[in-house]
């Protein structure tokens, strides 16, 4: 047993400190394993903020890098321990502390699985909308740390819109509480929202207070078939412009539907280049009215077909398929890279056209899809095989995609975060002055540079 293991074992317990090569390998990356891996020197499994604090104090004293980790579903290498050190696996901190109906808030430990929290609040007839498609396993601490979002972003926004307060273990091991459980607060800098999306570079989030909504009683799903990608993109913009706000508005290509048919039951016969998968929610009257208006807009814009799915079980198979769509792509291709560039909603048609041009210019297929309703597209470059030439072309494609998105007034990342994967692009969006300011913030929180070093701001290293 090495010194690190025995020291940490004294702080927690031997069972909750792992240093075997197999365990270190299991924690060496997130879902961007193809991009970078890094073995930690130890994995710890604390059960409360006090234990996290002890570990972080020890790490600070010994100048050891610390990488917090939720479920490891990230898409930007945010929790990949590239400088080794200690990975703090937060998944055993999984208690829902409170669901407060009177205040419509919930308080959870950071390792609570999003899907479990949603089920728990729905039993109380409440609603926690953010829905990154890894919701069945992703943790709320991870969601907050990456400002995660999903299809419901179009109507309900993303995780930070629901965060009211946090408990944070600072990089020196001290514990602070930011915000609270009030729906408004105007005291000092808004650290709660600075920490939301900090990707673990400013400390370890150990508890979260979340705002809840009343649960909409009725959900209805519709599928719109479009002849061309352009037509679908125009339709997305028009639906938003007309003031109909669906709870989900997904843009899916014919190839995407082909994969999703592994889950859609009965399968959807595809007869168009692009599909809009839409969910409406609200009261029966609202949903019926919205469905009628939506149908009208799509018909005026000459949709090939607009189908409102009556059977709720059938509708569920579409959303189950949507959850599985990303990973299913690997059934067809050995590798893919997914971006999450987000543009203003009225620029979606231009962005979709640009993506088709980029695809042609690099000579690789770019899957065009995403949460189009909130402007968040997930252009996915797929590799028919693995070789250096394709790697180079894909890299060039990513650059072009991001530059195009920014030129349209968009942002590098809508919901995945920067991590390492997109760190080189922050300069284009933020500029040198702002990056310097943000780095001074990082310096103020973490003068030793031990908290998730190398992430977001690649230049600083522990």
């Amino acid at each position, binding site marked *: 047993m090495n010194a690190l293991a025995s020291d940490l074992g004294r702080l927690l317990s031997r069972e909750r400190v792992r240093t075997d*090569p197999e365990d270190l390998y299991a*924690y060496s990356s997130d879902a961007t394993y193809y991009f970078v891996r890094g073995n930690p020197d130890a994995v710890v499994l604390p059960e409360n903020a006090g234990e996290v604090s002890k570990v972080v104090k020890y790490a600070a004293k010994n100048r050891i890098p610390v990488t917090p980790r939720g479920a490891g579903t990230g898409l930007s290498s945010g929790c990949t321990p590239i400088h080794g050190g200690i990975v703090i696996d937060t998944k055993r901190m999984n208690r829902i502390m409170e669901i407060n109906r009177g205040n419509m808030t919930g308080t959870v430990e950071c390792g609570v699985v999003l899907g479990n929290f949603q089920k728990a609040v729905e039993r109380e007839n409440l609603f926690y909308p953010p829905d990154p498609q890894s919701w069945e396993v992703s943790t709320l601490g991870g969601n907050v740390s990456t400002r995660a979002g999903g299809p419901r972003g179009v109507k309900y926004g993303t995780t930070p819109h629901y965060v009211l307060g946090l408990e944070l273990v600072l990089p020196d091991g001290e514990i602070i509480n930011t915000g609270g459980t009030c729906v408004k607060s105007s005291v000092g800098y808004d650290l709660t929202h600075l920490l939301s999306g900090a990707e673990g570079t400013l400390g370890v989030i150990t508890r979260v207070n979340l705002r809840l909504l009343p649960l909409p009683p009725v959900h209805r799903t519709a599928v719109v078939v479009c002849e061309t990608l352009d037509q679908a993109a125009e339709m997305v913009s028009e639906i938003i412009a007309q003031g109909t706000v669906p709870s989900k508005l997904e843009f899916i290509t014919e190839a995407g539907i082909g994969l999703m048919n592994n889950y859609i039951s009965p399968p959807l016969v595809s007869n168009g280049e692009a599909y809009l998968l839409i969910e409406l929610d609200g009261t029966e009257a609202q949903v019926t009215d919205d469905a009628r208006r939506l149908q009208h807009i799509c018909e005026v814009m000459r949709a090939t077909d607009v189908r409102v799915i009556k059977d709720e079980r059938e509708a569920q198979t579409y959303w189950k398929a949507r*959850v599985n769509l990303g990973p299913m792509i690997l059934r067809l291709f050995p590798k893919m890279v997914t971006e999450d560039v987000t543009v203003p909603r009225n620029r979606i048609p231009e962005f979709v056209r640009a993506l088709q041009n980029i695809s042609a210019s690099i000579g690789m297929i770019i899957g065009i899809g995403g949460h189009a309703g909130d402007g968040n597209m997930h252009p996915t470059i797929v590799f028919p095989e693995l070789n250096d030439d394709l790697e180079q072309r894909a890299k060039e494609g990513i650059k072009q995609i991001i530059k195009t998105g920014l030129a349209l007034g968009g942002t590098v990342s809508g919901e995945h975060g920067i991590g390492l994967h997109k760190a080189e692009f922050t300069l284009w969006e933020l500029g040198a002055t702002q990056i310097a300011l943000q780095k001074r913030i990082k310096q103020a929180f973490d003068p030793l540079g031990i908290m998730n070093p190398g992430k977001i701001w690649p230049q600083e290293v522990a």
Partner: protein
Amino acid sequence: MQYLEKYEDQMVRCYYCQLCQATCPVYLEDLLETHVARSRLNLIHAAFIEGILPVTDRMKEILDRCLLCTSCTRTCPGGVALDEIFIAARHQIYQGKRRGKVRRYLTHQAMKQRGIKGLMGKLKPLADSMGLSSKDLPEPDPNPFEDRYQDVIPAKGQQRARVAYYVGCATNTLYPETAESVVRVLSRNGIEAVLPEGLVCCGLPALADGDIETAQEMIRANITALADLDVDAVVTDCTSCGMVFRTKAVSMLPDDDPLRSKAEALAEKVWEATDYINRMGLVESPGPLSQAVTYHVPCHAGLMETMAEAPRRLLKEIPQTDLVEMESPNGCCGAGGSFFTEHRDLSERIRSRKLENIKTTGTNTIITQCPSCRYYLSAADESYEVIHPLTLLNRAYEG
């Protein structure tokens, strides 16, 4: 690499989406990412394909700490047959010798003789040496099904179909009344049941040890006994046997095996008995049974939707019987064949989750189509009656 290399293409389809964290029963207890299907798969790839990690005791522990429940396989959006890869990895590590000589011999005998009849009695001291005490396993019935029925059980009334009945080993020796229910229900519904000669264990216990060669021996013997029979279908009472015939028999035989085409044809013909009866429809309406039951879906039923759904449909046919669904009916009970005898603490924790879910239904009657689940659940609480769905249906018929 004899078997693993076949899965090399599949292994790289793992996207690290981590969705197996939601369903892997071992992970849900251990909450250590090393112990989730995704990590097992990646470790196998690192050790055996890339050769960047050695096979250590810790590696063996990680790969052994898996019930082969198939939850991950059913969850994986990439369509990776994780359970088969885990079996192939155990083969790679142990080369058929995961168990000591004595235990291998006994298991082999039990598999060939379709049950543990005799072994527990005559060879009790040896059984003890295997780590199987009477506390772990139920007493075999002194009068197994194969001694009660032979040859053909004719259809009552007009014959609608003729099937071969493959009685599961555990059902044969531990729960012969289930097998009786199966043939009675078949007969009552115009289905003639043939009891073929020459059947052996389906091979799953060998697969669990990565002993693919022994499993192949069983699979070949069963194909030989079943493939050429003049029957409309082969029915079994056990979802695990059903899974082996449906999916594993084909994937575990070599590509050039002379019996392969017969295995493929047979796979299409095999049905779990509840599934088959449900598909055929009832000829005779059952009488009322005034009770509430809950349904534990055996893990291996999950690979075929109709196999998991059939009991729910059939229960609707019994007047006054209410199905009270538990939370997570598909959740593993912790048995995993004989897994629970070697991972007592882990299995008990998995089971206690299940028991909590059963408790909230307020009923003590649990139906399930797997004898291992049945034994393990009933061992937890004497007040539970755990029975096969067709036993319930038979009771409704016989009053």
